[in-house]
């Protein structure tokens, strides 16, 4: 399938003359379309290095711009502006302002790994997308995406107890993203779910909500993971030239007192 990326020329950079005759040939309108000369003065020379310091993007330098990732991409099929190949190109050149135009959609990668499957250079574009959205958040270019909030809630629960209890997770996620649980389709789903369920099972599911599941003997694993995550986050912040911040440590302390 050919890759149609002409849309990458922004409309404001196109110049068309309504009336133009060059050496007796009428090139009015469409025939006189040119691309405006641009001067780029704000390269971020550290961009590739910073992104590559985040997990998943370690191999971004291998990319040879074949476009297989974009061609295979699930989200690109829904929104042509979602273009992993193009973003990798911009990062490698250090064209930060150009990259920032798409900052609000990069987190939408659904981790389907079609790109990773297709990539001939083992770049792991899926990982690059995650690293890019992480970079945007750490640098303050975007607020935390709903996806990142979900990942955090999920990981906190796993690290704390070793296991996930979905009901609790969903409730906390909806609360943190300011959504109501009272959405028509969600209510309908619960209604259908309850239709044929025996009471004993409902009681059991309800009980799981109260007695959050946990792995036995998890405390030592939890401490080991927390140490490691703390050290990694500090390392990443240093690589991006950001100050130290002990956010996770504080959140964990609050959680331990809670349980």
């Amino acid at each position, binding site marked *: 399938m050919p890759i149609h990326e002409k849309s990458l020329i922004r409309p404001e950079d196109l110049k068309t003359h309504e009336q133009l005759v060059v050496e007796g040939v009428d090139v009015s309108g469409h025939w006189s379309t040119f691309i405006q000369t641009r001067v780029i003065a704000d390269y971020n020379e550290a961009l590739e290095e910073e992104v590559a310091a985040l*997990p998943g993007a370690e191999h971004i330098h291998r990319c040879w711009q074949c476009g297989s990732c974009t061609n295979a991409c699930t989200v690109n099929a829904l929104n042509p502006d979602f273009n992993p190949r193009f973003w990798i190109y911009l990062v490698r050149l250090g064209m930060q302002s150009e990259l920032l135009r798409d900052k609000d959609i990069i987190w939408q990668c659904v*981790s389907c790994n079609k790109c990773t499957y297709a990539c001939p250079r083992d770049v792991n574009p899926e990982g690059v997308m995650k690293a890019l959205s992480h970079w945007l958040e750490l640098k303050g270019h975007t607020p935390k*995406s709903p996806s990142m909030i*979900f990942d955090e809630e999920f*990981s906190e629960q796993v690290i704390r107890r*070793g296991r*996930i209890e979905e009901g609790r997770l969903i409730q906390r996620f909806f609360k943190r993203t300011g959504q109501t649980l009272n959405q028509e*389709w969600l209510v309908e789903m619960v209604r*259908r779910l309850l239709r044929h369920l025996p009471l004993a099972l409902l009681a059991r599911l309800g009980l799981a909500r109260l007695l959050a599941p946990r792995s036995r003997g998890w405390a030592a694993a939890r401490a080991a993971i927390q140490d490691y995550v703390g050290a990694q986050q500090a390392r990443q912040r240093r690589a991006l030239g950001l100050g130290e911040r002990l956010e996770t440590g504080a959140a964990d302390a609050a959680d331990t007192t809670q349980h």
Partner: protein
Amino acid sequence: MSDDKTDKYRRVAYYPGCALEGTGHAYNRSTRQVGKALGLDLVEVSDWNCCGAMEVKNIDPKIQTYLSSRVMSIAANRMGMDVVMAPCNGCYHNLKKAEYDLAHDPASAEVVGRLSAKAGHDAYRAGQVETIHALDWIKAAIGEEGLRQRVRNGLKGLRVANYYGCMYTRPRHIFPEKDAGPGSESTFEPHFMDDLLAAAGALNVEFPLKTACCGGAHTLSDSDTSTKLVLNILRAAETAGAEVIATECPTCHSGLEMHQIRADRKFGHKTQVKIIYFTQLLGLALGLTARQLGLHENVSDSLELLAAKGLT
């Protein structure tokens, strides 16, 4: 597949994972029931933990590797098992990924070694266990021929679209046993579920979106995208003439169920195709009851269709 696998897979360590204790309860139940009906022995991994699902890797990939390695370490070092069977695509994928990373990336092995020592258990070493999916398990331990002999109430040509999703086949490199010639699973066009359900009497339709993405990673955080992706899958299945989409992953399964309703209620796109775990379909063919297989627990209500077909 070779005979040594037939025997080796008769008794395996069973890793249900978090989803199978929650929304995927019916998958857990039907997997255990089918195992029992086929005379296969499932020994649950004691004291297991979450594999990290799709989320923990975005906080730190090596923590995900550690979490998955702990499950394999318990199976190998505490229980002395050499096969771990995970019916959830997410769990299966993560254990495979951890196996690959531990074999090929010294930094991952170093972190897992360090964290395991701190957590007070033996570190998992690559190669100690073989991780398989529920599909590999039945396919190798029983096989199509074995299944055909045991079918008591065949699926009577029920038209099925087999949906495998993303994590079962991608990325290719973590599944070295796939794409390995005749008899092996294909990452491009998987067929193990097709094979088993055909042996159980289903009619597999020509379904082009077997490995399309349902948007499971963003099912709640970017619901509109997930709804669009799921609607594509549902419509393609209906266009192909399917009455049922067979699933082999709790996240895909509940994603399809949830966004089928959402597409209808929020965007007015109604679809009729039913969503059923492949283990539930196999169970029906083996003569188990709808209740034993948890069919009433599915949000997608297939009881009427199955009754009309004389399958329940």
